[in-house]
């Protein structure tokens, strides 16, 4: 047995204007989970401590919270992997959500973004056109099973730095779930779904891999890349800055072997988009004043033909 002290965020939106913290100490084996420690604290010390939980085995997705500043499932986190030398574990509600009571948050923005996807199959044709169930090959199904493991715990959404500054961003889970229908061979709304998720800022993903902490290994980070590739393959909303950026990066690497910064900026914003270019001009001028401007043209690397051979063999789309 060990003494575990939970340092808990306490707040009740019904009565409190500011949160406070309580330290609650419990005697439990140190290999048990943070959720076990919370359950013990609630049962033995303070029945008013509030948190969501149900299955206690990483299936229901209820108990995601911040544990020492990193979001994760309390039921999947043993105390001895997170406690400090004094046995203290700091628990807070998930960030990027409005706290409701203690560790319970308002999940509405997460569910809103999910329901915008129309997260159900919209078949290509009527059921009556089939005399048996619609079949999916094992290879086609393999693409979908990882995403189907998503338990909607919102860990990725809470970890996402883009959501934290721009709540219009769909967030990792919604994009991963869009992928689940975009790549479903039975679905008839592929183009509409790609357009919808592009409008919800698919291309605003910052490539930070924070969502690689997914407790169910859905890896939304990789699924987001898959959806972007689908958008480029099907040429959906190609005039957005995201796809233009990806394609012009490819173009400069193919031409010079290097990512040519100046051309990438112009190609992403648009060479004739005067207003857009003026917006980035102040930073450009500040950099120029320090002699820090990237060169207007980049000299190709030695043997750049080899790079072009790679691009041509793989038929990489570039602008």
């Amino acid at each position, binding site marked *: 047995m060990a003494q575990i002290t939970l340092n808990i965020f306490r707040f009740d939106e019904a009565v409190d204007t500011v949160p406070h913290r309580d330290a609650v100490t419990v005697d439990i084996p140190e290999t048990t989970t943070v959720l076990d420690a919370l359950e013990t604290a609630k049962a033995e010390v303070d029945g008013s401590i509030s948190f969501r939980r149900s299955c206690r085995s990483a299936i229901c997705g209820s108990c995601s919270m911040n544990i020492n500043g990193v979001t994760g499932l309390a039921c999947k986190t043993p105390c001895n992997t997170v406690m400090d030398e004094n046995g203290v574990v700091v628990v807070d509600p998930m960030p990027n959500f409005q706290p409701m009571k203690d560790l319970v948050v308002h999940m509405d923005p997460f569910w809103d973004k999910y329901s915008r996807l129309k997260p159900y199959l919209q078949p290509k044709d009527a059921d009556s056109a089939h005399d048996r169930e619609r079949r999916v090959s094992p290879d086609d199904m393999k693409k979908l099973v990882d995403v189907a493991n998503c338990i909607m715990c919102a860990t990725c959404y809470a970890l996402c730095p883009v959501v934290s500054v721009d709540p219009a961003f769909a967030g990792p889970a919604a994009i991963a779930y869009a992928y689940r229908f975009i790549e479903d061979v039975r679905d008839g709304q592929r183009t509409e779904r790609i357009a919808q998720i592009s409008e919800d800022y698919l291309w605003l993903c910052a490539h*930070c891999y924070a969502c690689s902490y997914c407790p169910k290994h859905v890896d939304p980070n990789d699924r987001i890349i898959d959806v972007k590739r689908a958008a480029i393959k099907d040429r959906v909303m190609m005039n957005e800055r995201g796809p233009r950026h990806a394609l012009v990066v490819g173009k400069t690497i193919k031409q010079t072997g290097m990512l040519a910064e100046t051309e990438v900026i112009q190609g992403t914003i648009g060479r004739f988009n005067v207003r857009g270019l003026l917006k980035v001009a102040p930073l450009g001028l500040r950099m120029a004043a320090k002699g820090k401007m990237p060169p207007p043209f980049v000299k190709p690397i030695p043997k750049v033909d080899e790079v072009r051979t790679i691009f041509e*063999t793989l038929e*990489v789309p570039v602008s």
Partner: protein
Amino acid sequence: MSATLLPEDLPLDAHRRTHSAATKRYGFFPGCVAKESCRELFNSTMLLAERLNIELIELTAASCCGASVINDVNRDVARVLNARTYAQAEALGLDDVITICSTCTGHMRAANKELRDSEGLMDHANAILRKFGAKYEGTVTVRHLLWLLIDDIGLDALRSMVVRPLNGLKVAPFYGCHIIRPESVNGWESARRPHSLEDLIEAIGGEPVDYAGKTRCCGFHIQLEKENVAADMVGQNMRMAADHGAEAVITPCPLCHLALDGYQADSAARWGRTDLPTFHLPQLVAFALGVPADKLGLNKHLIDPRNVLVERDLIA
């Protein structure tokens, strides 16, 4: 606490003791930004290598690593481009490729992992490389200069080389996503609780500042997608650093550097003025090891880092 070396017979990984480490001759992949808008990073890296008595052999015909963006258009191209780079290192007899950019580190390691874990993908890459007479055997390890400093030079040795300790300068570490995440690709230290930069700051006489923003994203990769988002991400992180007493920031990534140094002016409206000067990793280490400040390109930064060095009596 420094990271420990694993036995040599383990699979090629982040902590591998390379042949290059034994000979102190390393393959060097500077990446695009250190050759374009952050020349001061390239120059200070070479000056640091001189102090450390190691040889960085630039892979001059190497291409861009793909910068994470190229993955959005094709799943194979970054892997094959990097296989071409590794083949160049092998041809020079080098089994270690040192990077000075977090994004290069993560994406080159991801490509290398795919190549080595799957015979099919290695054969696929080599079938294309064969068209111009190249072949990658799979012997290369990709590591960041930060890892080289800690694993090969060692914190104790570094400490003994310091001639100009930082006088307790409060430095906020800013890791940059791709040097720590995903853990399955990098794995050199915990992505959730890394401490290599803190160890390094301490070794050169600074005081590391702990704040939640140190492992968060700078927003560089989406700076052009939508206005203010990247600036807000910079502002949020730098606000946290400043509130925890930071006087300066250190980063192993030039992309983070461009964002942190460039956008603090724009983020001030929402997050308040922070104006934290940002050092490239080799700049601050080289400074502590005695390289004259005027050789480190500090005058190229938008937020001039020389002011805090003056305040701490480190330069006149």
